[in-house]
């Protein structure tokens, strides 16, 4: 990616001139490309994942059992999608606090469609996701029309969506779902891999393609990085913001529907009061993965690895019989540590002209 000159000879004198003297770096023995790779977020996360996997595998015998691996993969699948649903909004320079609330709304709508309306499960999924897109777009429209920060709007809609959902469902659950659908969440491929994880990986690929290879994805990144410049370059920033919130709604909905398939029921309290239980994983994935909170830069792979690391730590700590509250504390500390490490990493790269 970074190596323009090797695929194509530089054509202008100016470019050739600079190519002959690449910026010198502090760590002169490593090439700048390698230093950059070793200091990338994704590489760091991979190293941590391997490190913690080894530690947990040695410390607890249950960690490497096929059941444990299956459960971990299935949980990771959901956490990663939750991370994605926040990431696509963070890229635009905003936040979406209502991801959990939307996720539960979509899950309940899916439950209702399948159980009460009696539609086939795949139509139920599609219908519920359309609702997710609409709720998300509603967030986006309100943000664009009012000009308020997405923080305020989604804080309000988090309550509103959840409240309306509780009113409509009378806080009841849907537990008689089509067996094919519930089966999907319990299925094991080769005894360890959950199909949910495969769905998640596919969505990851689709998102990567979206950000790298589509006009809409590029526009979203530009609008997130500098809305003024994007607008003056002919990008409809308003539409872009609405689109990314709709996308966030769909992704939150997918996470909700995955949970339904896993537990075999759509339950209003599945993401805690107002969907708050999702907030920590929603931020942890993108932030650990190197998505800039100020917008304009996304890392799909980073978010995926970040969310996976979180799941790994949670599982491992619980297997070590660390109390659940301590797990929460550890995750909070991890978020803080990640931000600090990221800061020093970026300072280092900037100081050595590697960014």
């Amino acid at each position, binding site marked *: 990616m970074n190596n323009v*000159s090797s695929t194509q000879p530089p054509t202008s004198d100016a470019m050739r001139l600079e190519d002959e003297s690449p910026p010198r770096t502090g760590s002169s023995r490593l090439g700048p490309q390698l230093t950059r790779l070793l200091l990338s977020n994704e590489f760091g996360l991979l190293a941590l994942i391997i490190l913690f996997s080894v530690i947990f595998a040695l410390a607890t015998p249950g960690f490497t059992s096929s059941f444990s691996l299956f459960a971990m993969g299935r949980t990771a699948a959901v956490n990663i999608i939750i991370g994605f649903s926040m990431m696509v909004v963070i890229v635009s320079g905003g936040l979406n606090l209502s991801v959990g609330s939307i996720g539960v709304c979509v899950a309940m709508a899916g439950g209702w469609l399948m159980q009460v309306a009696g539609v086939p499960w795949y139509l139920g999924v599609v219908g519920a996701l359309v609702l997710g897109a609409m709720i998300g777009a509603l967030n986006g429209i309100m943000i664009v029309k009012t000009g308020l920060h997405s923080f305020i709007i989604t804080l309000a809609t988090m309550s509103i969506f959840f409240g309306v959902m509780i009113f409509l469902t009378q806080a009841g659950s849907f537990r008689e779902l089509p067996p094919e659908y519930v089966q999907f969440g319990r299925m094991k491929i080769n005894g360890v891999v959950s199909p949910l994880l495969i769905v998640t990986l596919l969505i990851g690929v689709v998102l990567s393609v979206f950000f790298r290879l589509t006009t809409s994805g590029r526009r979203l990144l530009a609008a997130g*990085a500098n809305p003024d410049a994007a607008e003056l370059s002919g990008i409809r920033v308003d539409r872009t913001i609405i689109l990314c919130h709709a996308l966030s709604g769909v992704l939150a909905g997918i996470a909700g529907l995955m949970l339904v398939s896993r537990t075999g029921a759509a339950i209003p309290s599945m993401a805690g009061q107002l969907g708050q239980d999702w907030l920590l994983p929603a931020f942890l994935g993108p932030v650990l993965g190197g998505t800039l909170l100020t917008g304009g830069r996304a890392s799909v792979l980073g978010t995926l690895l970040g969310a996976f690391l979180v799941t790994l730590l949670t599982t491992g700590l619980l297997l070590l019989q660390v109390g659940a509250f301590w797990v929460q504390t550890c995750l909070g500390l991890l978020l803080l540590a990640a931000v600090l490490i990221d800061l020093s990493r970026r300072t280092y790269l900037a100081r050595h002209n590697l960014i």
Partner: protein
Amino acid sequence: MNKVIFRAADISKSFPGVKALQQVNLSLNHGSIHALLGENGAGKSTLIKIITGIHRQDHGKLMLDDQLLQLHGPHDAISQGIGVVHQERNLIPRFSVSENIFLESLGNKGQTRIDYRAMHEKARVWLDMLALDVDPATPVNRLSVAQMQLVEIAKALSLKSKVLLLDEPTASLTSHETDTLFSVLHRLRDSGVSLVFVSHKLEEVQEICDQVTVLRDGVNACESRPMQGLDRQDIVKLMIGRSEQIPDWAARARSTSGIALELQDVCTSSGHRDVNLQVRRAEIVGLYGLVGAGRTELAKAILGKDRIVSGTIEVDGSPATISNVADAVEKYHIGYVSEDRKQEGLILMHSIIENVGITVWQQLGKARAFLTNRTIREHVEPYINKLEVKTPSLNQYVNNLSGGNQQKVSVAKWLAAGVHVLIIDEPSVGIDIKTKAYLHELIRELADTEDTAILLISSDMPEMITLADRIVVMNDFQVMGDIVNTRDYATMSEAIMNLIHRKQADKPTTPQTTPQPDNRAAL
């Protein structure tokens, strides 16, 4: 009489990969104005940062009053009497004038109550000295850019500066405001302060400076020479190593080519009244005016960003409804090079290819399912090469480019878009002579070979007279008239000034408050 008060001797400073300064010397006389000149990247900013304690030199020493100076930070410099007015504003917008002036000493008293009345009175002294007639209790965001500049100078003086460095203090000032500032600088000099003056505007430098130091590529091209006996060409030669080539372009007649953009009786929500304007194909129309005349606002109204209240816009002879910038770009092929390239022109955290490609995504994306970087590069690379953007790779972040190269990128994206009408707002703010000359040639060529209609907004009179075929003068959100450019500097500048002043003669009662305070603050 010519006592040296401050000396920087044999200063060297390296950053990773760059030798920013090599054995640079500068000596400052008591009560003088010393010009520090050089192109972008010549090392002026680095030298200023060393003198003011922000960076530390690798080698060499700083002497103040024959005493060796050890600066461990900006505070040391301030306490030694070295003040600086940076290029960027360093005021706190919501604080009052006097709070800003005494910001450094506000904190020293800890928990005690601030005596605002005494502070305002103390501030008054400095404001009077600078002939700045504002209430010290006014929040600075209500001031004009020039007034803010003076407040910064007051702040530096209140710290008892013996040496005062001014980094491009006139960049955003009108010529009238510049004159006011210069009379202040003269008075300061006469009272014994030594001033270092950094500017890209050589006319100003020649006007007020006594001595000059020129840097080129991190070394002294000349050191503390008297200004007397140096003319503009000598200085340019020192700065760029050769003499400036003043383009001797023939005047062109464009009165027969088709009208690309026409405004008829346009009034806007930002306050323009009955603006009439025509730009023909292949014509460069200059839009001249003082800062705050409403030129940038007019450009934004044409682009559909600000609302048009009445009147019509025609593009290529047919009426156009432009409701947003996307319409302007996609439907009517109008592009805009912003005066504020960091905020509005470029996405600094993205790469060159993304910045140049942004205007062609739409067009390229239509024909194919996936828009790869390779496709975009094939389309935009010729323009980047044509503009000679200096970069190791197209994936370089724009943030890492020099000002001149950034400006080239912000022009390249509109070349790539192939616009029919290009509005260029202050193309040479903060870029060096070489790049400026290059951009001028390019703009001229764009009109000649591509038939692009160009509306050039500039406050730089020589630039205007070099480039424009016709000059439209604006003042106070109205068009005052237009003149065919004869390329004769003296007559043209007089004619332009007459047009601006016509208004003041005709309507002497029009108060200063007519331009929106919002616009002034935004500038």
